[in-house]
């Protein structure tokens, strides 16, 4: 039981990270209908920026952890958002209204570029970081098994819940969110009603990138080690999560992220670590066979 609980906690933590990245995929897909293949790499850039900013803070003597983390969070979000904005500007905006596959290839090119750019700029070796906030709570030491909840895990889950709530409010209640949904459903009409479509799309990328940087920071804190290649693996998982939940749906992305995190964790715990990705992908395929639009996606009604 404790083992199960421990895995549950680990799974939820991992799922939160996936969910935050998945939101970026889902938002961009929702608004311009493209798979932003470079999003995983934006997440990786976010993780690197978080590491760099943190080290810079340490270098100038800001070592009070909560303050340092808050600054890292804000600065990394801003800088990663700038990356997200630039990627959209260079690789996607010129292709707006073009064929579906052109932005996809462009995105794959951008992904290759970002990966190798970071590799060249920061080196190919893994970047470890000693635990920033060690320790945590422990429960149930009765029969020898202890359930650990680290501070970092609590932070990750807490931050994810807060961000998700904020986001849902933003999209459903504000006029920016309404403009976003309008662009999603009919870009041309949105422009006819005075919505600056380019700006709205840019903002979507900025928001997605900012969330990815939060996930990057969490990844850094949770695993304590990053490299230039983490973007691909996490990106594919998060994309899977977004599709599993129903691409285009924000709660779906979060749900999908949680599920992928849980499947991976439990499969590794009870069956085999090697095949955890196979388990995640297989469940995706099975779900899609029965629910072709994912768990919370809107079923595609064929207009005849």
């Amino acid at each position: 039981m404790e083992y199960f609980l421990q895995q549950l906690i680990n799974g939820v933590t991992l799922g939160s990270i996936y969910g935050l990245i998945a939101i970026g995929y889902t938002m961009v897909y929702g608004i311009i209908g493209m798979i932003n293949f470079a999003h995983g790499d934006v997440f990786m850039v976010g993780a690197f920026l978080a590491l760099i900013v943190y080290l810079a803070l340490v270098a100038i003597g800001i070592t009070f952890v909560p303050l340092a983390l808050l600054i890292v969070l804000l600065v990394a979000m801003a800088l990663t958002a700038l990356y997200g904005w630039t990627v959209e500007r260079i690789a996607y905006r010129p292709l707006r209204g073009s064929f579906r596959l052109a932005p996809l290839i462009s995105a794959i090119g951008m992904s290759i570029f970002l990966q190798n750019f970071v590799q060249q700029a920061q080196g190919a070796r893994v970047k470890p970081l000693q635990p920033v906030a060690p320790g945590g709570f422990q429960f149930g030491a009765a029969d020898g098994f202890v359930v650990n909840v680290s501070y970092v895990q609590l932070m990750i889950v807490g931050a994810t819940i807060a961000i998700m709530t904020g986001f849902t409010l933003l999209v459903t209640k504000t006029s920016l969110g309404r403009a976003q949904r309008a662009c999603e459903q009919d870009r041309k009409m949105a422009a006819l009603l005075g919505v600056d479509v380019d700006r709205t799309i840019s903002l979507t990328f900025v928001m997605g990138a900012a969330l990815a940087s939060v996930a990057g920071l969490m990844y850094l804190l949770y695993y304590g080690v990053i490299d230039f290649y983490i973007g691909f693996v996490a990106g594919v998982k998060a994309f899977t999560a977004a599709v599993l939940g129903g691409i285009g749906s924000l709660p779906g992305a979060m749900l999908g992220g949680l599920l992928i995190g849980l499947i991976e964790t439990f499969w590794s715990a009870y069956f085999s670590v090697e095949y955890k990705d196979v388990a995640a992908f297989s469940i995706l395929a099975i779900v899609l066979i029965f629910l072709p639009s994912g768990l919370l996606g809107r079923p595609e009604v064929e207009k005849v």
Partner: protein
Amino acid sequence: MAAPASPAAAPSPLIAAVKDAGIAALIALGLALPMLGLVTTQTQAGMGLVPHWDRVAIAVVAVFAGRLLLNLTLWRPGRRKSALAVPPKVEATLARTAKYLGPLAILFAIVMPLLPFTERYAIDLGILVLTYVMLGWGLNIVVGLAGLLDLGYVAFYAVGAYSYALLAQNFGLSFWICLPLAGILAAFWGVLLGFPVLRLRGDYLAIVTLAFGEIIRIVLLNWYWFTGGPNGISGIPRPTFFGIDFDRGPDGFAATFGLSYSPLHRILFLYYLILALALITNLVTIRLRRLPIGRAWEALREDEIACRSLGINTVNTKLTAFALGAMFAGFAGSFFATRQGFISPESFVFMESALILAIVVLGGMGSQFGVAVAAVVMIGGFELFREFSDYRMITFGLVMVLIMVWRPRGLVSSRSPTVFLKEKKAISGALVQEGHG
């Protein structure tokens, strides 16, 4: 009537250009400052930062100068729109010349290895390029003709390679028996994987094919006793000239035909083998396009619902495209295995699928000629920059973005009709759909 000046005619174009370049430089500063300027390095006391301000300066200056130059030339106000677009006339000429360039290119491919100045390196490169041409043509059936987005194509390439390796090693079957078997096995996997997922649409299909590609790779990586895991399979039998080995022995190729032994014989054989395989792929595809199945693929890409209303079984039609595409990948895979003599899961990563897809899209979906050109440009260009290995991948990624921005529909975007009454007219790419499957 006193209408105010439109914003496009701002006071001075030069000032505007400098201002714009300045903003770009500022953004570049924001991007470069942390990533290029502060390098994370492992020290004895843990992680630390090493400043590299010179790199930041170079990046910012480069962006400013480049942007300014572009603003004053290509992006001058008023020129902006037509600067990069290819006029329809040029496009039509390109499409027409493609008809003659195709046979010429094939001719060149046939005589290239025999030319006196051709070095072994060129033949090796030729083999590599032709492998990708073949893979591109195979995927073109799925993506270009049937409009199904497949992000896991490399899985079938892997199936072909492992089929050959395992069949040849465990049962001692010759290449010529294994080749069709590998193709059939790959096609079988294509159907097996395709059957449940082909009713998915668009990007759902894309992620599932990507997932299948990854699943196959992970299985190959972890199924030690069968596939050798990460160590792969080595000592795969080399190809024979219909049973005659390319070795120094008395029964070898050189001795049998009374030639003096040269390692080049095998390379030449491999070259012509892949050339023949690629040309067969091409020939079959061209033929298929003119058969009802090929027309049904293209119709499916244009409008699936209309297809259903005309009595076309869309599931079977999609499956055939999937299976045939997989089969050619299987052929290419077994060629790859026999050429390398060694295979491991590392050759079948997602990047390979992405690369093949990029070749198809950059070439112009559905265009056999375009795909071949794209393969030559991408693979050949990539290999030529081998010396600059540090910056090769960065450039590669950037070039992919730039080509797409320049020609979103690929190099040859027009479609050639499969049948005509009076006159065969190329169809503008703007009218051709790319499918939602």
